[in-house]
């Protein structure tokens, strides 16, 4: 292995470690160093920063890390991404994406922690995500999915009162004639696999890490 490869491997590893150690400043400075050393920017994200986020996600599922850790790790990851983004080819980035997702909290609900975590983990997994925010009317999900060419719509709700509105997203997709073109994944504290099946969603994910596995599986089988 050449010196350059060794150096690159070391930088990628350190980038991952900066995320795992929740060190935003280190992630940014290492990203600058990666650029200076000629490390491919997209690789620095996908095989460096995002790997660190993946480690955090695995730890979250095992009960080693919790929501504060995910959020601060994500801040470190994004601090690095912001340094690297001007240096990579957007088109290549789009071509390399695992998929495109539209995500939001359904109308009537403003609890967005879970949604934010899912978005972070899907972005770390290479998905291009469009965040619609919270209290999102069903039609906005459909319009955004159509505009962005989304592969998956992720709908979140923490409260039972907002859950029935999730079904309206699926109805609107059918009305627009694009139901077969996009997968629908639902989640949230009160949502269950049975509910997902009842409303005609394609999948249910019980946490952010599961959402990544589910999204990958759905698109693989599409």
């Amino acid at each position: 292995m050449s010196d350059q490869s060794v150096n690159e491997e070391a930088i990628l590893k350190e980038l991952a470690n900066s995320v795992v150690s929740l060190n935003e400043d280190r992630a940014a400075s290492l990203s600058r160093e990666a650029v200076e050393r000629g490390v491919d920017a997209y690789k620095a994200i996908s095989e460096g920063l995002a790997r660190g986020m993946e480690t955090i996600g695995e730890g979250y599922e095992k009960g080693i890390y919790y929501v504060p850790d995910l959020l601060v790790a994500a801040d470190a990851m994004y601090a690095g991404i912001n340094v690297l983004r001007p240096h990579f080819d957007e088109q290549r980035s789009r071509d390399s994406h695992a998929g495109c997702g539209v995500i939001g909290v359904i109308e009537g609900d403003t609890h967005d922690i879970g949604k934010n975590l899912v978005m972070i983990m899907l972005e770390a997994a290479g998905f291009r995500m469009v965040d619609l925010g919270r209290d999102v009317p069903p039609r906005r999900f459909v319009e955004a999915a159509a505009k962005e060419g989304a592969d998956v719509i992720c709908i979140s709700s923490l409260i039972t009162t907002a859950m029935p509105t999730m079904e309206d997203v699926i109805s609107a997709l059918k009305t627009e004639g694009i139901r077969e073109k996009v997968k629908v994944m639902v989640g949230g504290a009160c949502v269950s696999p049975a509910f997902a099946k009842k409303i005609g969603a394609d999948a249910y994910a019980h946490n952010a890490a599961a959402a990544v596995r589910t999204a990958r599986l759905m698109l693989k089988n599409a």
Partner: protein
Amino acid sequence: MKDDQLTPKERFRRLVAGEPIDRVPVALSASLYAAKVSGIPFREFWTDPDQSLRAQEWAAELHDWDDTPAYSYGWSDWAGWDFGGEVTIPDKDIGFPFVSERPVRGLSDVDKLNVPDPWTAPVMSQRIRCAHLNMESIGKADLHFNITGMVASLAGNDLVLRWYRTNPAAVHTLYRKVMDYALRIIDVYVTEFGGENISVMETFPLDSQNMVSPQTFAEFGFVYNCELNQKLLSVGVKRVHLHLCGNHTASLPSWKQMSVPRRTVVSMGSDMDIKLTADFFGTDYIICGNVSTELLQSGTPEAVMASCREIILKLKDHPGGFILSPACSLPPLTPPVNVYAMLKAARTFGRYE
């Protein structure tokens, strides 16, 4: 069917006293459901205490459930308004108010926060009014605390959750300000109503392991909630209800250390193993729970009865006593027949000889 031998009030009195009762009580925390079945728009429910209380009284009479109308002016994200932020109360058919402009938007705002006066703060002033209405109507004044939730309402969940890791001192400052407000509120209630007439409900969604580690809870939420409960005990509060939203299993030992009155009610959601939790808490606590709210809203009455039966048979003989309740507040969209199914299940499977 309705061949109860005790009134709801008498049933609860006996349960707390540890005396024999006729059947498992049913408590529904049905504030928004009451608004829905009474035809009151949610916005009016949030802003008109008189209407709100009347709705709850009518709904209780309709279904003959066992719990009494609670405070009516409250939602989870409220403290930020009292501390100087702005709130949005939706005009929608179903909607929850939320703080739309937080009083804390960055670290530099933390030390500048002033602790409000409960008498003039937008939410607490209305809650005091509601408490007076409750006192006149049913002889108790209700208080609700969610200390960590109040902290999150000041700065938003995203900031507080991050600051646990990056700026713990700032979080402690926020907790201190919230606690100072809570202590002022308690003092007002004691003066107005007397400690023995105050009934306190405490909820802890942001302290669960769904959100933070047991260590974070031990360092933050646990410390300040201990202070809260010590204050409540010191002023003679005898009725406390702890609602464990989310999964608190790993921090159960901490909960047992909290100083609460004997016969405190501990309720929980679907994330907790109710039998395991009941066995852990033991005979000094009344256990309450935990019918799935999704089932109540979307299931059939038969499925609701089956689920209630399973829970009742597990818990009806818990030495400390047991109350059948939803895992959280009764969803406002619950079909009335499912409410009836809960009560029918209590009367069918929950009788005591």
